């Protein structure tokens, strides 16, 4: 896959490559320098961004955000170095670097933000960057589909999360996390707590691919391998975990929190580790083990005890180290041999000893073998699980145990099997990877070993402060490799035995799982397609219903909606009685004659089939309206109305000379359905008018205009003063509209040649 594009001659990706490597490297060193300070006390800095909405661009530097920032920049450096060699000659490499750096900035912003809204913005930047990176091989339909799937799933969850954030911000009165995190008791007892929790978890679960939203993550492996290592394993998919960890002091600690997180997390972990056994493509195996890790992390954050959080934070670091190394390793193998199939690879340690070493270090950590740091992570998970009370202890421990057993077996499949035994034939003749690609996995693997040997460093600088931030209180964190003989150690030994047995028989198990999967009626990926098809079908159906291209249909839908909504409001509010008390003073004969003429004129326009009669009847209506204006003290309006009415008649008559006659009235031309809509609209309008007239009258604006018309604008005609002085801009807009209409009409009429007459219309 990595070799079938026209190559561009660039050494290490050229300038784009060096920039992309330098950026995370410098930031990594910067954060490393800050570490001792932050380990002592968290810091908050910030500037106002949108003050009117309470949105600040502020950063919260505490153990949690520092741990993530170091992982993002540290693994980022390894990944960009690797990419410069892996993709440096790709014609679109500069584009790739842009996306990758965009992601990096988004991810850093996400973990460092102290403001919920800013956090959301960065969250979406990572979603978009992920979309662009998964779809990097845009020529492939599979890539595009996977990219869109990831975007839609995580984007939908992100929107739900935004809803949760806004509600939380309303409840707390601030969007600043550093303040919200101290209000836990108030938020947990608030009646909206459940809604906030579910909306937040919708965002976290989709981003961190918890079952049943997991299906996008294995598909996201369509991205180039460094992207899978970086986004879809070490960093972005942990954003959901980060969010849950971040919100733990304010949302965590309730029964709902405990059970939702441990159940979803546990099911995801075990489901994913079983699915990992099923895969033959090592990249897919790693994708499912990532799901397993995300499930485990969710489960331990849900468990919520100090020990559980500590286990979770340890595992977070452990997993990022070994998983990034393994992904980068399989990229090298793919590059060198042209395949990632576990069934094909074997004996590679003879030709690729350094890759094999990196794989071994990472896989030992994944399997939880001492003295790797993975062993510490696993031990603490067991201790944390056993330390919970009642049913929770049983569930968490069993799930953690099952997942760990599978991890041991999977470790063998991805790092032992391809490297030992006899060298097997592969599409390319294998060769050792170049140093920029080896550096990352080797350093990450070495760190897995180093932290295992020096757990105190890890505990003091990363896990300790992170645990404080997530747990909300400061307690001593002490990580150690050897905890004496206890239940956890016994469980570890059992894990190794069970894991080894499964590894020995993994090919038979895989065959059985494949058979089971083939029969299983549940297929999330196909379900997703059906869901999308359903949406498209619904959209097509409703577009055909209300937007079928017929003007008649549009008008009918518009007026029916008007009648339904206004009418329903009247019925629900019982407002039909409002107009009863209208004055019953005697109406002057001239007045009702004019009104009767208006009604008669309008009905005549409907009834007639002669164009001239219609124009004359419209003239009657227009002049009747002008008379109303005259009778009720609006001379200026009446003059305008008369002028316009004359112009309308002239214009319509002129145009009509060129247009066909109106169709003859026939039985078919009577449209009872439309008549009903028309009558309903008229009725609702009448009631609207009556209730307006029956309501209170606010004369403040008029009084103001009357009082200031002469003293301030020196005009005695108040209407004119309003038009040309108080509301000049409106009048200017009005003139502009008329001018634009004139220009557009002129453009339309220029060079209009008569077409063939439509005989049917005669």
């Amino acid at each position: 896959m990595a070799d079938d594009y026209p190559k561009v001659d660039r050494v290490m990706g050229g300038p784009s490559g060096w920039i992309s490597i330098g950026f995370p490297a410098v930031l990594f060193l910067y954060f490393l320098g800050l570490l001792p300070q932050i380990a002592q006390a968290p810091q908050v800095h910030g500037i106002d961004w949108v003050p009117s909405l309470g949105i600040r661009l502020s950063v919260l530097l505490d153990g949690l955000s520092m741990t993530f920032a170091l992982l993002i920049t540290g693994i980022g450096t390894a990944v960009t170095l690797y990419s410069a060699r892996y993709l440096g000659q790709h014609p679109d490499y500069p584009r790739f670097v842009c996306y990758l750096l965009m992601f990096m900035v988004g991810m850093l912003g996400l973990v460092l933000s102290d403001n919920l809204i800013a956090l959301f913005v960065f969250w979406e930047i990572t979603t978009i960057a992920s979309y662009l990176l998964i779809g990097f091989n845009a020529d492939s339909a599979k890539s595009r589909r996977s990219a869109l799937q990831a975007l839609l799933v995580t984007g939908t969850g992100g929107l739900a999360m935004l809803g949760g954030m806004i509600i939380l911000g309303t409840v707390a009165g601030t969007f600043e996390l550093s303040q919200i995190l101290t209000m836990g008791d108030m938020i947990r007892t608030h009646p909206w707590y459940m809604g906030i929790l579910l909306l937040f978890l919708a965002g976290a679960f989709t981003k961190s691919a918890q079952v049943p939203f997991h299906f996008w993550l294995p598909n996201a492996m369509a991205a180039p391998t460094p992207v899978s290592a970086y986004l879809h394993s070490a960093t972005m998919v942990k954003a959901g975990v980060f969010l849950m960890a971040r919100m733990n002091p304010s949302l965590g600690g309730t029964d709902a929190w405990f059970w939702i997180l441990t159940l979803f997390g546990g099911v995801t972990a075990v489901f994913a580790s079983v699915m990992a056994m099923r895969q033959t493509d090592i990249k897919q195996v790693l994708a499912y083990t990532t799901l397993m890790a995300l499930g485990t992390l969710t489960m331990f954050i849900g468990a919520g005890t100090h020990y559980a959080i500590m286990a979770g934070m340890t595992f977070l670091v452990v997993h990022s180290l070994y998983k990034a190394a393994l992904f980068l390793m399989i990229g090298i193998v793919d590059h060198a041999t042209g395949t990632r199939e576990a069934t094909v690879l074997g004996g590679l340690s003879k030709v690729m000893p350094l890759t094999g070493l990196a794989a071994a270090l990472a896989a030992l950590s994944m399997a939880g073998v001492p003295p790797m740091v993975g062993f510490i992570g696993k031990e603490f998970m067991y201790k944390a699980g056993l330390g919970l009370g009642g049913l929770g202890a049983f569930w968490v421990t069993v799930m953690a145990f099952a997942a760990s057993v599978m991890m041991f077996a999977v470790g063998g499949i991805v790092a032992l099997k391809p490297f030992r035994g006899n060298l097997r034939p592969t599409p390319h003749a294998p060769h050792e990877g170049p140093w920029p690609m080896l550096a990352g996995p080797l350093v990450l693997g070495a760190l897995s070993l180093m932290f295992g040997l020096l757990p105190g460093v890890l505990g003091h600088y990363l896990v300790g402060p992170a645990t404080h931030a997530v747990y909300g209180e400061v307690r001593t964190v002490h990580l150690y490799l050897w905890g004496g003989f206890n239940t956890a150690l016994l469980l570890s030994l059992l894990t190794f035995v069970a894991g080894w047995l499964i590894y020995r028989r993994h090919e038979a198990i895989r065959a059985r799982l494949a058979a089971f999967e083939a029969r299983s009626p549940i297929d999330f990926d196909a379900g997703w397609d059906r869901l999308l098809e359903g949406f498209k079908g619904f959209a097509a159906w409703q577009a055909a219903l209300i937007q079928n291209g017929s003007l008649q249909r549009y008008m009918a839908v518009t007026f029916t909606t008007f009648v339904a909504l206004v009418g329903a409001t009247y019925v629900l509010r019982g407002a039909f009685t409002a107009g009863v008390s209208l004055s019953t003073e005697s109406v002057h004969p001239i007045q009702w004659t004019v009104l009767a003429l208006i009604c008669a004129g309008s009905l005549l326009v409907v009834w007639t089939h002669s164009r001239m009669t219609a124009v004359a009847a419209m003239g009657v209506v227009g002049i009747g309206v002008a008379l109303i204006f005259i009778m009720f003290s609006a001379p200026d309006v009446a003059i305008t109305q008369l002028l316009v009415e004359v112009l309308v008649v002239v214009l319509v008559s002129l145009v009509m000379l060129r247009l066909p006659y109106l169709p003859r009235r026939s039985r078919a031309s009577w449209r009872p359905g439309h008549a009903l809509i028309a009558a309903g609209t008229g009725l609702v309008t009448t009631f609207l008018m009556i209730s307006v007239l029956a309501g209170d009258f606010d004369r403040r604006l008029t009084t103001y205009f009357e009082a200031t018309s002469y003293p301030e604008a020196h005009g005695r005609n108040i209407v004119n003063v309003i038009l040309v002085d108080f509301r000049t801009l409106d009048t200017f807009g009005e003139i502009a509209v008329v001018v634009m209409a004139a220009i557009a009409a002129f453009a339309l009429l220029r060079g209009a040649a008569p077409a063939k007459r439509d005989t049917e219309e005669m």
Partner: protein
Amino acid sequence: MELLLAITIGVLVATSVYLMLDRNVLRFLFGLVLLSNAVNLLIFGAGRLTAGAPPLIDAGAYAPASVVANALPQALVLTAIVIGFGLLAFALALVYRTYMTLGTVNSDEMRVAEPMDGQDLDTGRLGLGKPDPAQPASGREAGI
């Protein structure tokens, strides 16, 4: 008087809506003229009716001596009349040009942008739900 005015407005709106639901765009335009009259009357009436007292200030006075008609809706209606006229003039030109080009004033026959081809109207006419060549057609799409 107000009640009668409200009923008149209702009749005007009803007739204009019926006209605007016609296929013949000329009748549609008649409806538009009547509707703008109805809406102008509605705004005017909502500002309350005052007979025989135009909103003018006598020479030498600084404000109207007695109660005068509400000037604000008058100003709004004045603007609305002119804009309504602009709209009508443009719409007339559009209808004229359309007839010159297409030879019809029936709105259902004006389908240059979205040609009507048989039953396609009720399904994927806007390009939605068209089967993706990369994917097998589902039963629903295949049945059409």
